[in-house]
């Protein structure tokens, strides 16, 4: 098990091997399909892409007194092509669920990034690892807006590493 803090360095990426459990802490950002479409065309971003982490999630509405609503991962494959320009701008970790394309995996290795998975369908449990949340971009997208999240020991597994291992193929 590896504990990681954001922002993520190239050294951190070297430590990650497929199948390993990761507890992630620090600031991460959310983005799904529509937010990706917009992000790739933004000249200036309200957060630093270099060393950043993007979590593929669209949470449920938050109740008063809670940091966020239910917040589990969505399927990552839908973001495969759209993730490439963001990795080229320094995106280091993506958190989602499920297998992705070979093209994505090659681009990920080339850009020295990593793909982590969180367990789908456990959004209530995962939300307890999110300390705070705020919408920072594209509020009009509703659940698909970009949130800034502060997480503490957020549980993931390394799915693809830079050494070519794949949790879905090596089991």
């Amino acid at each position, binding site marked *: 098990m590896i504990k990681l803090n954001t922002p993520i360095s190239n050294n951190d990426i070297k430590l990650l091997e497929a199948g390993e459990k990761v507890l992630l802490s620090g600031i991460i950002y959310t983005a799904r399909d529509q937010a990706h479409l917009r992000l790739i065309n933004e000249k200036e971003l309200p957060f630093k892409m270099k060393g950043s982490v993007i979590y593929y*999630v*669209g949470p449920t509405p938050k109740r008063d007194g*809670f940091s966020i609503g239910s917040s*589990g991962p969505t399927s990552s494959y839908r973001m495969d092509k759209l993730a490439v320009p963001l990795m080229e701008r320094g995106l280091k970790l993506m958190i989602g*669920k499920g297998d992705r394309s070979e093209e994505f995996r090659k681009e990920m290795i080339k850009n020295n990034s990593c793909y982590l998975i969180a367990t789908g*369908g*456990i*959004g*209530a449990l995962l939300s307890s690892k999110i300390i705070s949340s705020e919408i920072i971009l594209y509020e009009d997208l509703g659940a698909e807006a970009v949130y800034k999240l502060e997480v503490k020991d957020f549980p993931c597994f390394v799915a693809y590493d830079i050494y070519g291992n794949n949790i879905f193929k090596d089991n």
Partner: protein
Amino acid sequence: MRKIDLSEVTNIVKESVIKINYELDNSLVALIQKAKANETKEISKSILSDILENQDIAREGNIPLCQDTGIVVVFLEVGTSVQIEGDIYEAINEGVKQGYNQGYLRKSVVKHPFLRENTKDNSPAIIHTKLVSGDKIKLHIASKGGGSENMSTVVMLTPTDGIEGVKKLVLDTIFNAGGKPCPPIIVGIGIGGNFEKSAILAKEALLRDLDDSSNDNIIKQLEDELYTEINKLGVGPMGVGGETTCLAVKINYFPMHIASLPVAINIQCHSARHIEVIL
């Protein structure tokens, strides 16, 4: 004629969509517990443990089981001795709107395939209506997530593809879906009818009791065989490998054209959220 007050329909839909998104059915929880005991790999076991812990947290009523609280599907059976004054579809959709707002559920429905503007209240529901005899209204209400729905398929096999053709299609579909539909999954299969009928049969199959089996011997045997074969695929919880890929296989069938063997496979994630209510 028995008069049904449509506000009752709205209320029951509202209460149902909230309940199913916070409380996982006990028979499903029991199957996941059994699967956990059966797993040998540490990572697969820990995923099933997390799924069980998650439903305990959600049951407290503050945070839904999953962030994808689905699009609502209703199988509506109306007794012909029931008198309805007004628009029952509107009443159902009003229940969806109230439930998704009051229950802090995610609004996951967009108006247009390309403009993708959110309806902001999770309406409209997808409603399938049947007329039956009697003086009751039955609603089977489901919140269906997008991830598992995206891995579903309809294929027009030919009659001579037969039972082996169906098996191969089901196993290939589930293997290729891998971890995307959030396994362990429930598999609903519709065989026969025609193109659209097979898909509705598959969806209806997903709503059957988890412990029942088909009353047709050949179909029951196919359900049992596919359950075993699917679990031998090794996809495992969330696709990371293991003994449990599916929790149940349900097949519904219907007569079909001599030229056709339509097969629909509807996949349900481990968070199967549905309830039957009778008014």
